[in-house]
């Protein structure tokens, strides 16, 4: 009796897999998408190196601040035997050197593996002060997936290699979009929980105003758009729901390359979004690949670069845009 529902479930999962698989096959062809992905890839490592290199400037300051609250994560298991200054120096230098190595040889797997290890140690270090630090999560996992790109040592690469390269590259896009969907899922789930408990929830007309007013009160600050939302909470209701919709269904964008740009514009550039969902810093979007950028003076250019290099815009962008990205550098 219990066999039947299980076999239905299995059949259903397989049918979903077949549909997803077929859609991916239609997107990932190893043709012009491969060429674009190949051009974009080095920018990821250039940017990684840029971050690592600029962080070196603050190394002495970080060491002087001491290791108060430092509780190493498991990737830093070897850290116990070192003094704090040496550990931080090793991690920062390793991240810089490995990302530089990968920036020079982005099409070889070994440098990409080293770059990931360096980034992972750096990420672990930042997450070793009482709680995880998520600002570099996207970079970390994109770096992880990039390790599986095939070596492009032969010219021209075989058809199979081109297609696997495109597939893995698509995987990084899908991963980033998945994280947005997970964020949307969390908000909707807790929205229903709060709704059932009779509390203000994400579907309430004043939800955005409550977010904004609570944050502004805790920060003792005011921003122009915030005042408008507080004065007219209903004004923000509809955009709030649109943002929720965009977040939740983000993963579907991975299967519809034609709406990449629309998604990019709506999720990254809605000023309203910045003010409503963004907690501590009203100038930066929530958990995007530009999260780690605010301290940089050339933020907009770097954000632009980050989007092109760390895949959120990815392989369906046309060549003209890539040329523009190069000009920015």
């Amino acid at each position, binding site marked *: 009796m219990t066999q039947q529902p299980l076999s239905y479930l299995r059949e259903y999962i397989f049918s979903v*897999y077949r549909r*997803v*698989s077929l859609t991916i096959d239609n997107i990932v062809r190893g043709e012009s998408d491969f060429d674009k992905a190949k051009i974009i890839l080095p920018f990821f490592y250039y940017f990684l190196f840029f971050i690592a290199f600029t962080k070196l400037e603050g190394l002495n300051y970080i060491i002087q601040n001491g290791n108060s609250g430092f509780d190493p994560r498991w990737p830093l298991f070897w850290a116990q035997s070192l003094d704090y200054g040496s550990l931080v120096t090793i991690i920062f230098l390793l991240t810089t050197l490995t990302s530089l190595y990968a920036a020079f040889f982005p099409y070889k797997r070994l440098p990409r593996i080293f770059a990931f290890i360096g980034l992972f140690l750096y990420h672990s270090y930042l997450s070793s002060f009482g709680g995880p630090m998520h600002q570099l999560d996207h970079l970390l996992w994109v770096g992880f997936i990039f390790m599986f790109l095939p070596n492009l040592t032969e010219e021209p690469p075989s058809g199979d290699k081109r297609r*696997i390269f495109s*597939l893995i590259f698509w995987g990084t896009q899908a*991963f980033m979009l*998945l994280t947005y969907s997970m964020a949307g899922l969390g908000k909707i789930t807790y929205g229903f929980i709060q709704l059932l408990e009779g*509390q203000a929830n994400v579907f309430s007309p004043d939800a955005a105003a409550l977010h904004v007013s609570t944050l502004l009160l805790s920060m003792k600050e005011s921003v122009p758009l915030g005042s408008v939302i507080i004065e007219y*909470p209903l004004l923000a209701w509809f955009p709030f729901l649109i943002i929720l919709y965009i977040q939740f269904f983000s993963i579907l964008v991975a299967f519809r390359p034609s709406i990449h740009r629309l998604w990019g514009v709506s999720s990254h550039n809605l000023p309203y979004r910045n003010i409503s969902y963004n907690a501590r810093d009203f100038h930066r979007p929530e958990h995007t690949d530009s999260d780690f950028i605010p301290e940089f003076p050339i933020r907009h250019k770097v954000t632009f670069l980050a989007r092109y290099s760390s895949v959120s815009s990815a392989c369906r962008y046309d060549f003209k845009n890539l040329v523009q990205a190069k000009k920015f550098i």
Partner: protein
Amino acid sequence: MTYEIAKRILLAFLALYALMGISAHIMSAKSNSTEDLYPFFSWFLFVNVPSRAQADFEIEIVEVDNQAISPPASLENLPDVFMENNLSDRELRDLIEKLGRAVENKNTGVIILTRQKLEMHFRKKVSYNMLKLHFNPIDRLRTGKIDKKTVLASFVSNLP
């Protein structure tokens, strides 16, 4: 590795990430801690909409050097008048919250310690009330309306 195998591994990875991320969130929610499955993350950020009925602690300055402040003012609005300028806004807020919670819980040890930490920054003798404010955050920002104000305790600073 063939294309088909790579595709299966990739899809399995995406599914695994989602599963691990959500599991990490459930774990931390159950244990009410920041416990996680590093480096997986649920991305459940800002999931709770703040309540319409909120409460906060505030220190209300009543007298400075036996001179009444009229009307009494929030410490955070006039700290540099009589305070050393070596506390950041964040540190001051943390101290006020800590003192407020300690007063509410009648935790004498923490009250004494926190008062010492706070009052060491006063340049003058200060009389102050520890308040608990109840408010709707939207109304408070829009009109300054406080629904209820409770005096939890009154203190006079001890100059060294």
